């Protein structure tokens, strides 16, 4: 029984609510951009922020020159009050800050209201708010995530250097059961097919004017793995590398870690909204009704061999993916060895939780309006959506192609192809739900887990290949 009348919404209603919120924000921000006199548009957006922005607007927004701030330490108490006011968020607030705060609130709302990946969206959402509390930049307050010596800057170090993603992969490895994949290895190909989206997005990004390393980092959004996307962008689009080849020689890549991470996590959270239409469009009802034969059981020794073989094989092929795949398979060996349960537990609980909290917070905070709200960010969001849709389509279509060569009860339900984008375990759940819509007695979840986890491996391999081409660009 539903005790909470707010919660019994269908996916359609979820999608509508979400789109509604996005439209309001874009609409609102367009108004704000239009002129100061339209500021009231912000106030209607969200109950909670109404007061905030109301108060904000009421304040006298005076811009200050930080250089002169120090000289103004003045004799009278009233001047003291004025000086204090110059440092408040009210005095330093811009439209961008307000837009981003609203975006953060929407993230939190989606996480709590619809339970879209709450472990990720709540830290990111609150991070967006924290990163967009306006403060006087350049005054040495050590508050902003981009200010040397600030706490957020120290915590952000693990993002910019790509340290957190491998630690998260360690935890993922320690909590992932690869049995489905081991029992039916051919489903691994579905995880490969979905990676086509990565490369098509890479091309699209190139044609939209991004430099190749940036385009590579953007493409990986389609891999639907937050940690992989952050790792790639910290390597390729980190605002530090200087390119040496072709038309971009001598230029420094942009720092796109923030937009790429936010896009990747946003779309991962929105998998239950994005994938179903694509899946239904590309499959017939008959295909969606295909029952797959139950997977065989997997012996302990197979489970132990899996991470070891996987590590050696994939890393010989793409050594650049070592930090990700090495940790993933390491975690899985801790889990499956049977003699290190204790370490696997810590890796998949305390360690991954701590890293998730800090990673989410700092990735969110890296969206500080003054550096985040650019054309590039918006293009990255568009490309990310494209990437997800193509990846889903490729997974589904490849399953249909495989079916041409498979007979009888070996046939694959093409819905599970969509799970190849990873976004573990949401896209596998989407396959299960869509399968049950076609035939309530159809249980695809376990089958969908195979391409789902293969997608994680596939994206990491793709990332490794990209890195070997683009790191030395």
């Amino acid at each position, binding site marked *: 029984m539903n005790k909470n009348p707010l919660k019994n919404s269908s996916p359609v209603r979820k999608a509508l609510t979400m789109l509604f919120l996005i439209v309001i924000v874009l609409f609102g921000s367009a108004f704000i951009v239009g002129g100061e006199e339209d500021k009231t548009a912000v106030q209607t957006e969200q109950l909670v922020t109404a007061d905030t922005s109301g108060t904000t607007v009421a304040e006298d927004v005076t811009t200050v020159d930080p250089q002169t701030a120090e000289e103004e330490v003045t004799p009278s108490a009233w001047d003291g009050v004025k000086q204090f006011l110059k440092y408040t968020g009210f005095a330093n607030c811009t439209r961008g800050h307000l837009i981003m705060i609203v975006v953060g609130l929407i993230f939190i709302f989606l996480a709590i209201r619809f339970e879209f990946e709450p472990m990720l969206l709540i830290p990111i959402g609150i991070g967006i708010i924290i990163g967009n509390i306006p403060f006087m930049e350049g005054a040495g307050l050590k508050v902003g995530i981009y200010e040397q010596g600030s706490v957020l800057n120290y915590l952000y170090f693990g993002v910019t250097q790509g340290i957190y993603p491998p630690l998260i992969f360690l935890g993922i490895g320690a909590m992932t059961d690869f049995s489905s994949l081991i029992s039916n290895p051919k489903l*691994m190909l579905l995880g490969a097919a979905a990676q086509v989206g990565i490369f098509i997005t890479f091309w699209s990004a190139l*044609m939209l004017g991004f430099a*190749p390393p940036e385009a*590579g980092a953007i493409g990986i959004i389609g891999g639907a793995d937050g940690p992989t996307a952050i790792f790639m962008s910290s390597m390729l689009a980190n605002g530090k590398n200087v390119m040496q080849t072709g038309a971009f020689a001598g230029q420094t890549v942009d720092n796109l870690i923030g937009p790429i991470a936010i896009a990747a996590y946003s779309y991962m959270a929105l998998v239950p909204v994005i994938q179903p239409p694509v899946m239904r469009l590309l499959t017939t009802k008959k295909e969606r009704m295909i029952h797959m034969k139950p997977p*065989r059981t997997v012996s302990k020794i197979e489970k132990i061999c899996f991470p070891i073989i996987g590590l050696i094989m994939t890393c010989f092929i793409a050594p650049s993916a070592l930090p990700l795949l090495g940790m993933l398979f390491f975690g899985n060996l801790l889990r499956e060895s049977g003699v290190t349960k204790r370490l696997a537990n810590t890796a998949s609980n305390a360690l991954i939780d701590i890293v998730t909290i800090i990673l989410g917070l700092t990735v969110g905070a890296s969206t500080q309006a003054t550096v985040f709200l650019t054309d590039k960010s918006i293009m990255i969001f568009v490309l990310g959506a494209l990437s997800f849709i193509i990846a889903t389509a490729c997974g589904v279509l490849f399953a249909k192609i495989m079916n041409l060569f498979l007979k009888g009860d070996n046939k694959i339900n093409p819905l599970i192809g969509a799970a190849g984008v990873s976004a573990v375990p949401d896209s596998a759940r989407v396959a299960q739900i869509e399968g049950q819509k076609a035939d309530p007695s159809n249980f695809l979840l376990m089958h969908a887990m195979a391409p789902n986890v293969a997608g994680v491996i596939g994206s990491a391999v793709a990332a490794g290949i990209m890195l070997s081409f683009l790191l030395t660009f």
Partner: protein
Amino acid sequence: MNNIIIAITWDWGAFDSFALTVGVVGVLVVFFALLFLSIIYRIVPKLINFKFKRRAKKNNVAMPAEEEILVPGEVNAAIGAAIYLYLNDLHDVENPVLTVDNREVRRQSPWSDKHQFLNQNVKR
């Protein structure tokens, strides 16, 4: 940020041979890497079973025929029902009115041990 006017310039020229190479090589390598892995994982169980069977024969121990331990249809259906119930249940979320979380009984805390303990008593 200032007025955001997104100037999208779609430049086919950027799709040069390098881009083509990266894309094509990338897709192929990912594909063959996973194909390769899937072949290995198809072979490994057979090798393991072979080893076990030989050993079992030597020891005169009957090995369970692993491949045949398949979950029968009815079990699968039952599992399905459980999943179905679970998925439906997932959105049965708590009453928005005060919830007392008795599960979080922490024994000690540097900042709030007694506080926690007392709160729990009080709310109950």
